[in-house]
């Protein structure tokens, strides 16, 4: 690593703040970083000390000769934590280059990661609770084709994190940058237009209408009845673990969904949510790989839906399931109208004249409900393999995307644009062969959305597979544009500045 500070100085812009950057353009994290990262460890030490004192294993009234060694050990531990945190801060730095960002870290084993910005998939700015108090944020990049999965800069001052986000998105979009005051790069903030906001009332109501809460309620009632019958209150103790689990789950979703907003802007879809930990996600145009609109059983009466999305990098091996579930949620609770609006922004051209009608058919339609809705459906013999859901199974292919609907108790509609399809496959088991059926799988990137169409007629499946590879090829040839702003920036910026209504499905948006 020693070579980087002496060579290729010219290639790296010194984007430093007030001369913080060194000769190679490397810039360190905010000075309070060790405090934010290390406070949990310090809390641990304090907990151990107080436990020993209170528990009597460390009696302060003893002679100093007995107490001192214990304190010496603790002081050494605290010192070690502080030194390590400071060393880690000292060695961690980032620098911006021409369409690339580098990040180095590690005390003993130095590690440098590089992310090509034209492969930028999403930028998240995360503010943990403590960070919000002192004004620090973490910047997370999701990059396809980078070296190593996890790219996070923790922690930066709020202003610096926002500036870096703007600069990264502008560079990724292919815009030229302007130099700000202190010699640092600056990019203009893209105008944004909020299209969805989750009210706390709706969020609570939606949470109460989940199967988990229903089970918890049944569990409570059951235990109460049992305790009355048996005549002993000890049965109620059995409730505690179950209630605790439910409370954890409810709290986690409350905490992450709180104040959920979706906004559209030229640099992509912006999501903001979180009660204690605030997360702002920016997913540039064309980075949403696949969508899944679903409706849990108990939401049917209310007509609520949720939307999940696949974004490359949001479901890496390194990120935990819980985190990727938070990141890949596009809309937590929405009416069918709001769903149509958000879909029209993420996928501006569904390839049909009336996208709302198609959406309605995909979400609510069934075989035999009298409507001819454009979906190619599973034939009647599919009921032998899918007795409940066969009537919902169907697929529709437009010029731009594939829509696969399924599920009856929990309804699903999954959408993949042709140019986002990774591969397509067909499979057939012995029973399906006997019934003249086959399943088609449309492969998308890693994520919660796994589009597949089960139990189609063999002829339909064959046509779908062979046509799908041709369609994907044509769509890729037309659509591919990594730096999405190169051609459409002025149009969209004008449209947004003029305050065009977001409900119009024909909002000019960059090619997907």
């Amino acid at each position, binding site marked *: 690593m020693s070579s980087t500070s002496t060579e290729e100085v010219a290639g790296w812009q010194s984007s430093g703040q007030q001369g913080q950057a060194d000769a190679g353009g490397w810039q360190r994290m905010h000075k309070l970083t060790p405090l934010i990262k290390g406070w949990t460890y310090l809390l641990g030490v304090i907990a151990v000390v107080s436990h020993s004192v209170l528990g009597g294993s460390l009696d302060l009234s003893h002679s100093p000769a007995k107490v001192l060694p214990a304190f010496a050990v603790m002081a050494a531990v605290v010192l070690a934590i502080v030194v390590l945190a400071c060393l880690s801060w000292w060695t961690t730095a980032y620098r911006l280059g021409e369409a690339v960002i580098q990040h180095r870290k590690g005390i003993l084993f130095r590690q440098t990661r590089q992310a090509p910005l034209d*492969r930028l998939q999403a930028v998240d700015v995360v503010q943990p609770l403590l960070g919000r108090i002192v004004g620090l944020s973490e910047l997370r990049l999701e990059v396809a084709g980078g070296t190593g999965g996890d790219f996070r800069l923790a922690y930066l001052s709020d202003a610096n994190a926002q500036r870096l986000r703007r600069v990264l998105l502008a560079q990724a979009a292919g815009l030229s940058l302007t130099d700000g005051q202190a010699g640092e790069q600056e990019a203009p903030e893209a105008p944004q237009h909020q299209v969805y906001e989750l009210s706390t009332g709706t969020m609570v109501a939606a949470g109460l209408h989940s199967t988990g809460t229903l089970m918890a309620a049944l569990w409570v009632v059951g235990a109460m009845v049992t305790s009355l019958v048996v005549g002993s209150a000890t049965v109620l103790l059995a409730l505690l673990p179950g209630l605790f689990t439910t409370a954890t789950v409810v709290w986690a979703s409350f905490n992450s969904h709180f104040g959920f907003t979706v906004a559209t802007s030229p640099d992509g879809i912006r999501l903001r949510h979180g009660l204690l930990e605030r997360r702002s996600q920016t997913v540039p145009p064309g980075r949403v790989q696949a969508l899944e609109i679903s409706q849990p059983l108990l939401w049917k009466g209310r007509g609520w839906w949720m939307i999940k999305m696949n974004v490359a990098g949001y479901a890496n091996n390194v990120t935990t399931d819980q985190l990727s579930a938070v990141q890949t949620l596009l809309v937590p609770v929405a009416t069918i109208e709001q769903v149509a609006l958000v879909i029209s922004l993420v996928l501006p051209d569904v390839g049909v004249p009336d996208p709302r009608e198609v959406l309605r058919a995909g979400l609510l339609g069934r075989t035999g409900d009298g409507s001819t809705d454009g979906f190619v459906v599973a034939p009647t013999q599919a009921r032998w393999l899918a007795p409940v859901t066969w009537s919902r199974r169907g697929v529709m292919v437009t010029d731009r995307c594939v829509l696969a609907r399924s599920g009856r108790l929990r309804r699903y509609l999954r959408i993949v644009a042709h140019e986002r399809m990774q591969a397509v496959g067909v499979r057939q088991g012995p029973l399906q062969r006997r019934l003249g059926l086959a399943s088609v799988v449309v492969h998308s990137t890693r994520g919660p959305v796994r589009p597949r169409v089960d139990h189609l007629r063999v002829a339909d499946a064959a046509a779908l597979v062979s046509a799908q590879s041709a*369609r994907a090829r044509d769509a890729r040839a037309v659509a591919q544009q990594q730096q999405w702003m190169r051609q459409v920036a002025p149009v969209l910026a004008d449209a947004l500045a003029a305050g065009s209504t977001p409900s119009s499905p024909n909002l000019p948006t960059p090619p997907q």
Partner: protein
Amino acid sequence: MTIPPTLSHDLSSEPGHDPENMHELFNPHDVTWTPVSRGLRTVRWIVFACCWLPCAASCLLVAALLAHRWMWVVVAVLLPLTLAWGMWLIHRQVAALAYAERHEDFLVRRGVMFRKLTVVPYGRMQYVDVQAGPVERMVKLATVQLHTAAPGVDASIPGLGAPEAARLRERLASLGEAKLVGL
């Protein structure tokens, strides 16, 4: 909507296309399949035998310990039967494994009972791996594996002769590079 929904990409007008033909599903009309080397059968037989022999030995041991006449009959019938069934299954599976290079995409077909066909566009391949295990190396075979950004794309082609594996890797890598598009 009066026109019935359709999925085809005006394929019906092409000659030789018979949508009702069951055979068509795993044999698209514009594809010439290359079967994998029959040497793969040997590889898999050897691997199968390595698993089967310990099982057979322990069955015999149990039978000897129990020393029951019926036990011997069961063992005498079952053991050859499982051996024959496994070898027959491997034979069929290897015979069904095939791949094809089309103009724009790569096709892999596998399975007899549970059939599977995967179509991977060249532009979607991230990288190509060639691997060879110890048994494969004995009979000079290798496995070529295509990697895309999607999990669950089963696009590995086992049982390729070493020159064919090298040729395929080179060809796929160069095609992938030429046609690679972003995600």
